[in-house]
């Protein structure tokens, strides 16, 4: 019993709400603590770019500080940033949003996702999401008293979401579908044709789509397609995006939501009380990223693509099956042929060869049998990691 626990109405409790108590600790957190206690670890477990934020973007933040631009901004965000966002989304995703009423600047996509769910979910509403997926979706749904409904996707199918699998999970209580392509942790992508099939189901069953497109610039094959750009989808989509991955700005904590005005208005109501606004320094930096950051982003993408090729070819050489993931900066190789499960593989690889990868089951049950390997790390580290993984697999 912790020191914090007290007796309330004769029952021992620690004040924590039931629905919060029911949320399990992140599988990553747990693994993180083991890694943190070790030295000389080569980590492929990192979900953020290894590049520093491009210098001109950092300088824009410095300039903002120098000029004393340190106050609150409008709840929705700086109008100039919202205009840049609307233009960027129009040019790159082919969806038209009104800069001043249909764009909300948030503290990262994480906050945008949270307020989007809070804005639309009534207790008991079902929220569908494809898995393996980012670790926060299910807890975020639980925190708004929604019901998470996981739709497992398959390695054989390159972790794409299929209309049949989606339909099979739809009930009269289904309200929202969360999409995340390119996907963390699998690197999966969906092309226009494949998204059209999903869009059709959403329209038939009147689902709202929250599409988390944080990795969209990091697509290495076909051009990225947003479901919000498909016919009839703009009105039933909340488009979420940010700066963390494409512009290497994780610590700035700035992202955004684009959606029809009624939805943005509802999200704004929560955002204004919970967060007030995103930090102005980060917003100033974000303007610079959108206005002048294209070539930096392209250079980083090129680096990621070369590393992906390296890692994928190395896994093939070692004999670890892995599909050719076309997005994000993750590979999600299959490791169950080694006779180990995800966690055993990751823990033993860490203990025996000091390479950190994340057990696939941290991203949902359907990730079992896989591990997530991030290539957001320098080539020198990747070369060492591959050598050690090879040694480890051969020793099994």
């Amino acid at each position, binding site marked *: 019993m912790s020191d914090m626990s007290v007796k309330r109405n004769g029952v021992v409790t620690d004040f924590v709400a039931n629905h919060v108590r029911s949320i399990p600790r*992140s599988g*990553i957190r747990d*693994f*993180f603590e083991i*890694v*943190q206690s070790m030295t000389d*670890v080569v*980590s492929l*477990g*990192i*979900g*953020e770019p*290894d590049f*520093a934020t491009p210098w001109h973007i950092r300088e824009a933040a410095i300039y903002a500080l120098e000029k004393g631009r340190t106050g609150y901004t409008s709840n929705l965000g700086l109008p100039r940033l919202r205009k840049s966002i609307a233009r960027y989304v129009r040019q790159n995703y082919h969806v038209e949003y009104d800069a001043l009423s249909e764009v909300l600047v948030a503290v990262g996509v994480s906050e945008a996702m949270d307020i989007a769910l809070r804005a639309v979910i009534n207790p008991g509403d079902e929220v569908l999401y494809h898995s393996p997926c*980012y*670790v*926060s979706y299910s807890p975020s749904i639980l925190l708004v008293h929604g019901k998470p409904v996981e739709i497992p996707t398959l390695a054989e199918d390159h972790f794409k979401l299929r209309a049949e699998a989606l339909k099979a999970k739809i009930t009269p209580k289904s309200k929202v579908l969360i999409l995340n392509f390119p996907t*963390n942790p699998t690197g999966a992508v969906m092309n226009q044709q494949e998204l059209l099939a999903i869009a059709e189901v959403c329209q038939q069953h009147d689902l709202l789509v929250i599409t988390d497109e944080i990795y969209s610039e990091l697509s290495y094959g076909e051009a990225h397609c947003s479901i919000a750009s498909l016919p009839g989808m703009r009105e039933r989509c909340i488009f979420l995006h940010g700066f963390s991955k494409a512009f290497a700005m994780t610590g700035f904590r700035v992202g955004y939501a684009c959606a029809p005005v009624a939805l943005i208005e509802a999200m704004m109501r929560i955002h204004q009380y919970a967060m007030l606004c995103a930090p102005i320094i980060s917003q100033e930096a974000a303007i610079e990223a959108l206005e002048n950051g294209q070539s930096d982003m392209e250079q980083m993408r090129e680096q990621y693509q*070369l*590393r992906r*090729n*390296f890692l994928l*070819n*190395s896994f093939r*050489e070692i004999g670890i099956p892995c599909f050719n993931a076309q997005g994000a900066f993750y590979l999600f190789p299959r490791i169950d042929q080694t006779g180990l499960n995800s966690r055993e593989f990751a823990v033993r690889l860490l203990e025996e060869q000091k390479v*950190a990868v*994340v057990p696939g089951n*941290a991203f949902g049950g359907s990730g079992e049998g896989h591990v997530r390997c991030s290539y957001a790390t320098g*080539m020198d580290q990747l*070369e060492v990691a591959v050598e050690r993984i090879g040694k480890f697999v051969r020793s099994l």
Partner: protein
Amino acid sequence: MDQQLLKLLEENALVSPETLAKQLNLSVDQVKSRIKHLEEAKIILAYKAIIDDDKAEFQTVKAVIEVRITPERGGGFNRLSDRIARYPEVTSCFLMSGGYDLLVFVEGRTLKEVAMFVSEKLSTIQGVLSTATHFTLKTYKEQGVMIDQEISEERLKVSP
């Protein structure tokens, strides 16, 4: 593809052909023969290390010299520039637009050595009209590499 290969080598000439092959989806033999070709065609001129002279305790003095020269009929600036560039003290030499013609980077062991080079050799060459020598005090960035590297390994070792 050669462009991409060159960029990778420019960044790090020590990358193994095996790694390059995997990055570029080529075979090791293909990479080796392309590099050989690029070397033979003198597209790749040399491979060198970038060194922090202070840490290496190299006693070097560097200077940049702005040189005005007289162009010659037929060859323009080329003959004279080539002659200047051939001195081993000269590490780089560029033809420039603007108020002077050549920007010459020189290196010596002592201030005196560099000064002697300028006064005895460079400025006495027929056709050299004037020189302005600037000595380097401190190096902050060398060929794209920051001398004081940023410490960026503050990233969490595992993150979602």
